[in-house]
Structure formats: structure tokens, C-alpha cells
């Protein structure tokens, strides 16, 4: 089944890319933005079909490789 993981920077971590995107959007006329934070999205197809177990596998991946927990948070979503 397909499981998604969203990796985002923690609140206190500087995100220069997000800032530049914010400025560019602002320049394009999108004036009502408070903040832009850039993250990563993974879609992982695992053999496991039990949603709980599949999410557990992807969570393990997040902890061990996909996210760096010093600066990033992860969120796991069942997509299929």
C-alpha cells in the first residue's frame, strides 16, 4: 500500500528557501502571505497491506533516514 511522509523544518529552523519563495510570491502580487516554509514529500509503496504496520515501517524510515530529527518533523499519511 502507498504511504506518504511529509517532512517539514521545525519552527525555529531558518528556511532561507521558504523566505525567497515568500518574497517572490509577494512580488507576483500574492500579498496576503504570513510565511512560506518549504518541505519534502515522499510517496512510498510498501508490500505491507495492514495500514498500521505499513505506517510503522515508514515511520521507521523517517527516523532512520528520511528526516533529520534535529531540524525536521515528519508526518505520515495513508494515501491508498
Amino acid at each position, binding site marked *: 500500500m502507498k504511504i506518504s511522509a511529509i517532512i517539514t523544518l521545525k519552527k525555529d*529552523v*531558518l528556511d*532561507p*528557501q521558504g523566505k*525567497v519563495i515568500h518574497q517572490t510570491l509577494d512580488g507576483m502580487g500574492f500579498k496576503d502571505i504570513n510565511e512560506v516554509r518549504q518541505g519534502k514529500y515522499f510517496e512510498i509503496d510498501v508490500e505491507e497491506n495492514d495500514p498500521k504496520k505499513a505506517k510503522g515501517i515508514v515511520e521507521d524510515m523517517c527516523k532512520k*533516514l*528520511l528526516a*533529520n530529527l*534535529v*531540524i525536521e518533523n515528519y508526518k505520515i499519511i495513508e494515501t491508498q
Partner: protein
Amino acid sequence: MKSSVITFPGSNCDRDMDVALKKFGFKNKMVWHDDNELPKSDLVVLPGGFSYGDYLRCGSMASKSKIMHSVINFAKSGGLVVGICNGFQILVETGLLPGVLLRNKYLEFICKNVFIKVGHKENPFFKNLEKNIFEFHIAHNEGNFFCTKDQLKEIEDNKQIAIYYCDKEGHIDEQFNPNGSIKNIAGILNKEKNVLGMMPHPERMIDQSLSGEDGSLFFKNLINNIK
């Protein structure tokens, strides 16, 4: 004295490091990332470059490669390990060093000479050095050292800050900080002081006719400290 330089797919300072180590008396071996065994070594160097194309996070893939199990064991048993630039990024990804290296504050790849000041000399890498301020070269996109407040306190208390970015006279100030690193940190040590990670490249400063000699001082001192 025996050294090993690990080559990952995408390493590009490995041969410069080999030249530097041999010039100052190390018997160096190049070790492929997919090998299991580390040759008998007094020093292991993780060189600069762009291992695995900097995919996911710089150094994250290389930190999981086969040889790294041996490098981690070597470090945990007290062996000396140095990571330069991408090597530093790999070391933080293994957890041997605290913190992370973020994208440079102004989103630019920085390639220039900088001055660095030695933070602490009570470690095998910098002890006995006469000079405190060195001119080294940096070339990186992700050298912005970041850690939590608790980690920062811990590394300051344990004298783990190896080097700071500074000016020619050794003033450590935000205006001499090229990449936004916390406290101008250019390199750190682990708690036990046998693992060093630094963004500047001493191996690019070993020949007066090409660049400078400050790297020579570093390597000469290092081999004398290990002997």
C-alpha cells in the same frame, strides 16, 4: 603513521587529501565506500565533495554506506576521524558529531579563502599548534552549522568548538561569518575529542606556489601529535 581516505560516489577532494597526507608523512590508503573493512589506520579522513549528489540531505546517504559501520566503530573505540566539508556533513548525519549543516544563509555556493581561529587546543588535532589564526579555503553550499540551544550549551561547556570564522586579526564577529553558522562555528569535535568535522579545506593550503601554507602547518602538527 597510517591513514585511510574514504571515497564515496561523488567525493572530489579525496585525491587532494591523499596528496596532502602523503606529503606530510602518512602512509595513506584509499578506501572505497562499499568495502566492509577499514585497513589498520591511525587516522581516517572523510573527504569533501558531493557524495550521492547531495540527495535528500548532504551526507545522509553516505552516512549509511557499508564502510561507515567500520568508521563508526573505529571512532567509538577512540580512533581519530576527520571530516572535511562533505565529510563534516557525513559525520553529523552519522550522529558522531552533534548538530546539522543547513543551506548557507544567503543561498549562495561560497568558494573563497577565509580566516579561522582555533577555539580549543585540548584535542589531538590542534594541540601544540603555535598559530591560532589560519587562512583556509571554503567551498560549500550547506555549511551553516545549526544545533539546538541545549546542544550549543553542551558543546560550549565541553570545549567542542574546534574553530570559528574570524577576520585576519582573529575577531570573531557576524560580519566575518560566511554562511550563517551559529556562533561563527566552522568546525566541531565530539565529546571525546577524537572526531573532528570542519567546513574549511586544509588540504588546499599545502603549497605556497598554489595557495598558501597554513594547511601544511595543520598536517605537520597532526602527524606529530599522532606519533
